């Protein structure tokens, strides 16, 4: 009985923000990263990372959808029958993705056009289902919301790292601004001298397999630093 009372005491208000809540946000960014440790949501991580802008927009969209779908599922978790919970969860996710997609279409049409089907594919992003099953079905709405934000940020972090490398070395620019490689001026007039001309953009980095290699390198570095994550099997 004493243990039960302790548990009740430990949760004074629904919106506390203590150490364990902070851990919910910081943990998925490194130690429990959804992409490199839990292997969730890899599909879209590869297709949208050719440009940094696309990756940032995708990261924001996924963070919003994970946070709110976690929260809504946690609110409804006592009313959802076990046998049809997958369909209920999918409908919640699909509703939120539709909202995000229509909002993006209204706010920034060119980016929406470039992301094409990949905004829709957030629905089947395994991060969502994975977190709903593993966390939101057994925690209160506020903690689930924070867990969603944390996992969304962990996913965005990987996306932004991969996209920054791919855009910098593949196109020689970041967020559309020229950083290295020959400028447009040089292409028109090869006599124009600029110290940036030494670099030729590497087309391989733009192709999707390069994203695979980059994620593998991130996994390598992360596990070399954090040896408890190493795969024993």
């Amino acid at each position, binding site marked *: 009985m004493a243990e039960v009372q302790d548990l009740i005491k430990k949760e004074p208000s629904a919106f506390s923000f203590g150490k364990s809540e902070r851990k919910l946000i910081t943990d998925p960014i490194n130690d429990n990263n959804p992409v490199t440790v839990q292997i969730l949501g890899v599909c879209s991580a590869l297709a949208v990372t050719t440009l940094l802008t696309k990756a940032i927009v995708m990261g924001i969209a996924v963070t919003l959808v994970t946070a709110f779908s976690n929260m809504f599922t946690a609110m409804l978790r006592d009313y959802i029958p076990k046998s049809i919970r997958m369909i209920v969860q999918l409908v919640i996710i699909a509703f939120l993705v539709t909202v995000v997609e229509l909002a993006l279409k209204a706010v920034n049409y060119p980016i929406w056009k470039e992301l094409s089907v990949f905004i*829709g594919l957030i629905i089947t992003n395994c991060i969502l289902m994975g977190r709903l099953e593993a966390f939101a079905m057994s925690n209160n709405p506020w903690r689930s919301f924070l867990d969603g934000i944390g996992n969304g940020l962990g996913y965005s972090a990987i996306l932004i790292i991969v996209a920054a490398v791919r855009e910098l070395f593949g196109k020689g620019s970041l967020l559309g601004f020229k950083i290295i490689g020959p400028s447009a001026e040089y292409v028109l007039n090869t006599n124009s001298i600029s110290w940036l001309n030494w670099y030729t953009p590497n087309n391989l980095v733009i192709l999707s397999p390069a994203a695979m290699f980059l994620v593998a390198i991130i996994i*390598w570095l992360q596990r070399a630093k954090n040896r408890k994550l190493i795969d024993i099997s």
Partner: protein
Amino acid sequence: MGDVINIFIKSAFIENMALSYFLGMCSFLAVSKSVKTALGLGVAVVFVQGLTIPMNWLIDYYLLGENGIFGMDLTFLRFIIFISTIAALVQLVEMVVEKFSPSLYNSLGIFLPLITVNCAILGASLFMITKEYNFAESVSFGLGGGVGWALAIVAIAGIREKMAYSIIPAPLRGLGMAFILTGLMGIAFMGLMGIDPAAFK
């Protein structure tokens, strides 16, 4: 007829769902540890994709489109309707297979529910819309995409089985190596891009 075969070959090899678009990667990386389970999942994907894509085409054309039953543009409902169709169809396939072929059900068992959240299925449904296929073409696109995905996962599983005997730096073992292998296979499949599907007409 030529177009249908053309699309089948294109979606199975040249625009492979797994290796050129990298769709369905979650289950692709998690299940490709042995050839046997990979084959099970591959067959299940061919089955479900072959059914859901034409089904979604019919729903999109006759219910959501402007010349459908309701006579108005309901395409903003696509995501919810498509994912519900896929979930319902997966459930239905599960029940039918369980009833008529318990042995197949036992070998597919765990993978069937997983397929609902396989991006390759929803992705193919959405690509079918953006590419504006007609009904026959969408049937062949669905089957071809499924076959291509199954082929890719079986091939990767074969390589990963052999990989168990190689010496790999500890931090790259398992997942890291799987990523690199998939990337290399992706580059290999790019070699097929030069094929002109029109030659098969």
